[in-house]
Structure formats: C-alpha cells, structure tokens
C-alpha cells in the first residue's frame, strides 16, 4: 500500500516536471506584448493582460518565421531520408555480414556521436564559404546527415540483429522469388526499426542550433531554432517574450505530434540504441 502511494506521488512529480514548463510557455504566449513591456510577473496572464490569439497571428504573419518553418521542415526531412537510407545499408552489413572493418565502422560512429560539434563550425564555415554551400539547404543537410548517422546505424543494427532472417529462405523454399521474399517478409519486419531511426534522426535535425546559427546568414536556409534567436534582436535581457513564446509553441507542435503518435517506437529506439541524438 505504501509502495503504491509512493509510485502515485512519483507519477505526479514526473508529470509536473515534464509539463509545467510547457504549460508556462503556453501561458506566456497569451500575455499581451504591452504587458510584457511594462513587466507582468506571474505564471498566468494577469486580468487585462491577456492577448488572445494575437501573438500567434503576429508570429504566423511574420515572413521570416514562416520561411524558417519551411526551411526546418525541408532540411530536417531531406536529411532524415538520406541519413536513414545510408544507415540502413550500413546497418544491414553490420548485422548480417562478416567483413573486415566492421569494428572500425562502429567505433567511428561512436566517436562521432561524441564529437564536440562547435569545434567543427569554424573550419566548416570557412570551407562552405569557399565552395558555395554557406547559407544553403545542402550546407545544413550534409552536417545533419553526418551527425545523425551514428545514432541511426546503432539503432538499426540493434533492430536488424533481432530479425529472424531464416524466414527469407523459408519463403524462398515455399516458392517465393527472392524479390518477393524480401518485399513480403523482410521489409515488414525491418520497417519498425527504420521508422524509429527516422524519428530520432528527425528530432536531432529539428533541434540543432549550432550548425543552424553558424552556417546560415539569411532567411534562405535559417532553421527555426536559429530564427527564434534572431527574430527578437540581440539583447537577451529585453525581448518580446510573449511573441517569442508563441513562436516556441508553434515550433514544438510537430514534436508533440510525433511523440503522441509514436511514443512506443521512440522509447524502444532510445533504449536499444543507447546513443544520444
């Protein structure tokens, strides 16, 4: 009985921990901009300080912000698809084949997962400017791919190791062609793993800030996290907090959607891969 009460209290604490700051940023996004300028402390908007949906309509009417959403969605999706395709090939080889250099690939992936990203932005900044990738979509897609590959390879090879590959031969014995065996047997078994790797990769790309801020200079490629910091001016102590909060909420909506739909897959991927994204 005491145990159950403890777990119940634990659950409440976890929920508070996770949701309170989210509730705060939503509440902040409904404070009016005038109230923010005058100072309006407190968790909820004071009476008369409410802004309705006006912060949201202002944010969505802002060209820079709309463009940043487009950039983020495009860049993250392309990087995710490319990274998962390349990682699937590598993970298949790692899980299924015996070859020289297997250890090397896994060690390298691990080393890159721990790489201090900031130490690359200087040389990349210089290189990208020379070859014309600075401030373009590919200029961000390429580094996102490199830094999500380790996570994708580890997650996928863990999944692929669990697949009963004999089923492929069994299907062939039963008269399926090798294409049919692959298409009807292996693809459905491998799809959940590939999907999980894709979600984790997308999270990484969507969250990235260091590359986003260093390798872009205009709205032609600037992703949301970087745009949020630009959109408000350089002074961190005097910001249109509520407007920014509305932007932050908008940028979090896709993440919440993905989490709500794919909760099970994400947890499985994080715990089997044991590599941070």
């Amino acid at each position: 009985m005491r145990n159950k009460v403890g777990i119940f209290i634990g659950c409440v604490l976890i929920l508070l921990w996770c949701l309170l700051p989210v509730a705060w940023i939503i509440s902040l996004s409904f404070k009016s901009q005038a109230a923010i300028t005058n100072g309006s402390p407190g968790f909820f908007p004071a009476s008369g300080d409410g802004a309705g949906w006006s912060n949201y309509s202002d944010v969505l009417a802002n060209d820079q912000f709309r463009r940043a959403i487009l950039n983020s969605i495009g860049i993250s999706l392309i990087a995710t698809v490319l990274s998962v395709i390349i990682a699937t090939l590598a993970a298949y080889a790692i899980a299924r084949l015996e070859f020289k250099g297997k250890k090397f690939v896994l060690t390298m992936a691990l080393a890159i997962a721990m790489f201090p990203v900031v130490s690359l932005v200087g040389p990349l900044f210089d290189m990208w400017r020379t070859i014309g990738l600075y401030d373009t979509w590919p200029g961000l897609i390429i580094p996102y791919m490199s830094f999500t590959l380790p996570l994708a390879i580890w997650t996928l090879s863990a999944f692929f190791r669990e697949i009963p590959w004999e089923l492929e031969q069994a299907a062939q014995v039963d008269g399926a062609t090798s294409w049919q065996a692959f298409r009807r047997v292996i693809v459905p078994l491998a799809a959940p793993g590939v999907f999980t790797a894709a979600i984790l990769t997308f999270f990484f790309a969507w969250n990235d800030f260091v590359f986003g801020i260093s390798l872009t200079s205009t709205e032609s490629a600037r992703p949301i996290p970087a745009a949020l910091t630009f959109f408000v001016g350089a002074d961190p102590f005097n910001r249109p907090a509520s407007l920014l909060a509305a932007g932050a909420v908008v940028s979090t909506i896709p993440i919440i959607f993905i989490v709500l739909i794919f909760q099970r897959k994400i947890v499985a991927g994080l715990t089997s891969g044991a590599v941070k994204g």
Partner: protein
Amino acid sequence: MSTATASTDSKRDSKRDTRLPASNRAKAETRLGQKLVAPAIVVMLLVTAFPMLRALYLSVFNYSLTAPEDREAVGLSNYLTALTDPLFWKVTAVTVLYMVVTVAIELVIGFAFAMVMHRIIFARGLIRTSILIPYGIITVVSGFAWQFAFTYQNGFVNQWLPFIGDTFNWFGDTTPAVIAIMVSEIWKTTPFMSLLLLAGLAQVSEDMLEAAKVDGATWWQRLWKVILPNMRAAIMVAVLFRALDAYRIFDNIFVMTAGAVGTESISFLTYRQTIEQFQLGMGSALSVLLFLSVLLIAFGIVKLFKVDLASARQEG
C-alpha cells in the same frame, strides 16, 4: 536466432579458410560489406575528420577573415596565447562545473524517474509520452522558457520561491545565472537519462531481488547491493553520453545569457572567436583544444569505470 546461424556460418567459413587461403565466398562477403558501409563512412568523415584536419592546419596561422591577406604562420603561438590566458582556464572551469553538477543531479533524478516508470502499472503510456516532451523539445525553446521564467519582469520563479525577493535579478551575477542555465539543461536532458536507466533497470533480475528480500535485506540494501551493481553498465553508458554532451553545452548559454556575467562555456568561447570575431586561426586552436579535452574526458570515464561499450550494448 539469427546471430546463432550467422555465427555457425562464419565458423564453417573459417574452418574452410584454414584449408584454402581465403574462400571466394568470404572474400565476396567482405567486398559487399565494405561497399554497403562505404557511403556512411564517407559522409561521416567528410564533415568531421576533414574539417578537424583543416582546423589543425589553420590553428598554426594568425588568420582573420576580416583581413585574409594578412594570414601568416605563427607556429604554436595561438595555443600558447590560449593556454596562458586566465580566461581560457576560467571558461574551462565553468564548463566542468556545468558538466559535473548537471550530470550528478540528472543521474539522481533520472534514476528516481526510472524506478517509478519501472514499477508503474497505471497510466504507463501517459507518463512515457510526457517524459518524451522535454526530450523532443528544441533546446533553444527550453532556454527561452526558463529564461523568461527566471526574469523578474515577466517570470514566475521569484514569486513561487520563498526567501527570494520579487525583484531578484537571476541574470545579474554569475552564480544565479549559472543556476538558471543548469535548470534548463537538467530539465531538458533528465528524461533521456531516465530512459537509458529504465533499460538498465529492466535487466536486473526479479528473482535476485526476491531472494534478497527473503533474506531480510532492507529496501536501501537491495538498492545498493543488488540493483545498482547489476545495472552498472547502463549507468556508465548514460553518464558517459551525458557528460560528453554536457561538456559541449552551448544552446542554453547562447539563449539565456549570451555568455554574459561569466557564464561562458568552452564551446561558446570557441564559437565567439570563429563566427562572431572571425578569428579563424585562434578559433581553430580553441577547436583543437576542445576536441582534445572531450577525448580526454571520454578516455578518463572509460578507463576510470572500465566501461565496455560493446558489451553494455549487447546487454542493454
């Protein structure tokens, strides 16, 4: 199942190998395997090894993008300047402080969360979904949310905390500003820690716990003598990843203080030198030093705790 067949296959191959120099099949398999991993290796090296070598090269120049014609080789003087500057050491100390404090707190809270999630019977999906929200949220957004929460003009923290005046300025001095940054960092990354620990907790055998209980071990003894030793590998993997991640702390500092009042980390200093001040030579030297310190920390943790990453992964 699959690994069993694969290993007998390869055993058969290696037996054949002792008779023949190398079977065609093994050769073909190696070729195919290498072909399949080649694209991944190329992409990973393109953006890491190559720029890192370039940083190594640039670091021996006095090279500023604002005056590129004046580039000249200066040997190791950039490193000397950095390593003899008290600012470098101060920034490194602050970074180590961020790393040690956040990882320690995350480990304790993350473990408590993992224990709750492991034992929970109701609302499992709800808890797991909500714990993924901080994990998935953009770090920049977390930074903004907490910065606004701590400001006295529009936040709520001063009102909620006892013994703190309503007009206390968290961002006016190093200690409170560092605390605010740590709060955002801890909030965002504890869920990741707790999920890794949850996977480790699932490996602890229930029979062993039951046996300890029958033998009269208290809850505290079971925790320290049975649970923790049995999930050592998972704890070490979680600490290693989080420590290296925390050492690279950048986003929260950028958003919350922009490095003001002594909150700057080593990553932020490197960024400021290269991207804001265009000092590519000096910035590259700092990049190399940052890289070396990350290697040193990784090596230290692996040696100190004898983490075998490969085996930890097999179990986890």
